[in-house]
């Protein structure tokens, strides 16, 4: 491993020596990460076709190009123990963290059997009871929620060994919520792992209109937290750096921020052709596809064979097909049977009143 994972990115606050026995030592881990990357890519390609065929209500937001970062995170986290608050481009991490494909297809396709029951859609899904809080759209808002989950576990005496991770984009770092959330986590020294996927654009807005520092990782020191920069297109680099960040958080060293550099290999959503991304940016190092890189890395290092990968691809395509077909045949929500209340409490005095809202024939 050594230094190539940190290539061309200044790392002002990497206060431990570079990892010596790198990611390659854990072949199962890498195979697992790769599988989640592949699963996400194939699923998302399918979502894109469904969108283009007019089969999906609302937008479709893909994580194409960000799978190495996201899947590494989701794989390195411990299901049932850790917390993972995914954001827009974390299909791979969700898959890796154990979210069933059906949660995705049901939510995108509006099945009432999905975790959101048609009430919320697309990437706005999760299972808070299983450690996957559900994002609201407002960027940056999940950082403090994860901090709160960790804070609660500490009070409950069940924090030991847990970490909580969340992802944001370069654009979300400009939000007040992001700042308040990290700072609070730093003050409380919570085991928060924050992945900043700097995909060079926030919707259409390039980095130079979003921040003025050389690299966002330079923010870490100002919060008094660990900071890592990584080439997000490089699976082996991600595997080393992200697992190390998680290890440090788990060890009690407080919040850790990983800034992964990469390029969003899709539009902001599938409605967006990303005309604003200059050709040079696509052509540069970070414009490469992390899935290609990962495949090469696995094959070259004898971790997987091309044949195996082909088999996986076919199997996953099949799985995805099934998850889509299943969600498509399920019932949509029914406004007449919908429980139209935003409160868990049933105030006895109000039973009459809650029947009042107009019924739409």
């Amino acid at each position, binding site marked *: 491993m050594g230094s190539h994972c940190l290539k061309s990115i200044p790392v002002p606050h990497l206060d431990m020596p570079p990892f010596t026995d790198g990611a390659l030592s854990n072949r199962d881990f890498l195979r697992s990460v790769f599988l989640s990357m592949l699963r996400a890519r194939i699923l998302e390609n399918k979502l894109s076709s469904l969108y283009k065929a007019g089969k999906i*209500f609302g937008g479709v937001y893909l994580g194409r190009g960000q799978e190495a970062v996201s899947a590494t995170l989701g794989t390195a986290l411990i299901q049932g123990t850790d917390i993972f608050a995914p954001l827009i481009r974390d299909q791979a991490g969700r898959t890796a963290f154990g979210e069933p494909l059906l949660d995705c297809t049901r939510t995108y396709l509006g099945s009432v059997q999905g975790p959101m029951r048609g*009430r919320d859609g697309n990437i706005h899904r999760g299972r808070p009871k299983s450690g996957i809080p559900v994002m609201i759209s407002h960027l940056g808002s999940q950082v403090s929620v994860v901090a709160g989950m960790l804070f609660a576990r500490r009070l409950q005496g069940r924090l030991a060994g847990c970490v909580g991770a969340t992802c944001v984009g370069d654009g979300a770092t400009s939000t007040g919520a992001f700042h308040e959330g990290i700072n609070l986590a730093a003050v409380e020294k919570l085991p928060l792992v924050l992945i900043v996927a700097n995909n060079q654009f926030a*919707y259409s807005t390039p980095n130079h209109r979003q921040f003025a520092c050389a690299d966002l990782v330079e923010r870490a020191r100002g919060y008094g937290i660990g900071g890592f920069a990584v080439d997000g297109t490089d699976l082996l680099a991600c595997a080393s750096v992200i697992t190390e960040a998680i290890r440090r958080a788990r060890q009690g060293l407080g919040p850790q921020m990983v800034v992964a550099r990469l390029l969003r290999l899709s539009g902001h959503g599938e409605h967006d052709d990303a005309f604003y991304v200059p050709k040079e940016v696509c052509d540069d190092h970070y414009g490469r596809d992390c899935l290609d890189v990962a495949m090469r890395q696995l094959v070259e290092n004898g971790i997987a064979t091309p044949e195996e990968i082909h088999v996986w691809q076919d199997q996953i395509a099949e799985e995805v097909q099934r998850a889509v077909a299943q969600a498509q045949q399920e019932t949509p929500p029914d406004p007449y049977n919908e429980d139209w209340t935003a409160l868990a409490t049933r105030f006895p005095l109000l039973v009459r009143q809650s029947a009042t809202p107009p019924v739409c024939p």
Partner: protein
Amino acid sequence: MSVTYIEAIREAQETLLRNDPRVFLYGQDIATFGGAFKATKGLAEMFPQRVFDSPISEDAMIGLAVGAAIEGLRPIVEMQFADFSSIAFNQIVNQAATHFYRTGMPIPITVRLPSGGTAGSGPFHSQSMEGIYAQYPGLVVLTPATVSDAYHMLIDAVALDDPVIFCEHKFLYRWLKAKSINGDLLPIGQARIIRPGKHATVVAYSAMVHEAVRAADHLQQDGWNIEVVDLRSVKPLDIDTVLASVARTGRLLAVGEAFPWGGVTAEVVARVTEEGFHLLDAPPQRLNARDTPVPYHPKLWAAHRPTPESICQALRKLLTF
């Protein structure tokens, strides 16, 4: 040749940039990209250094606009969705809205809020926040329902010395077309009788004006003449026009797309009963969205907001009281 509601908004901004050197545009993805809804398409090229992409910092975006207004400019800030103005809430209601009363110096900023629901947009890209902002002293809250109003009210908004919350309806953006941006011009603060009638008055604003007109057209078949008042501006609220209408019809239904507690419909009903109680032949009624977040699924969404059907139903009840 026709012009859509969103084109009218774009035109208005072009006109403003052309005619008033104090105007500039600030918002996420509004320069090269032309805005999430293309309300600023091409303007950055036409007016370099007057149209700026902002960071994802709604609080600071409004702070910047307030500062620029102090220095004599007339910024127009685009929120990508009305829902995200919750992040700018403090700067809007506490910084911008209070400035004139505190200091005597007005803050002429216009905050454009792409508002209201569309199918599949879900809880955080569908909100109608006019009733929130209208509660605060020091703000003007506009809710254009027609192509012509979208254009002219935006021009007027920028001319006002006060901070304006300009609630554009996303559903109308491309769905609503007119021959041209010309229409009968009314000053800000005056409501419009968009459909005359005599048996009942529906007070609506923004997208609900069109749903109300449809309901009225439907009831016409049964011989009912329903008058529809388009508020245009929810603060100030032209209660005189509403009262004059109720004086003619004796019956009032207030329709809004926002959540049911409080809001525009409550203010309308309360004002009418306070000042025009004797004009009413039946209990005034309200129809709002349901008291849940705006649901994502189109089937739920369509049952969450008032529709021509539910408006008809409410009107029938009102007419036969």
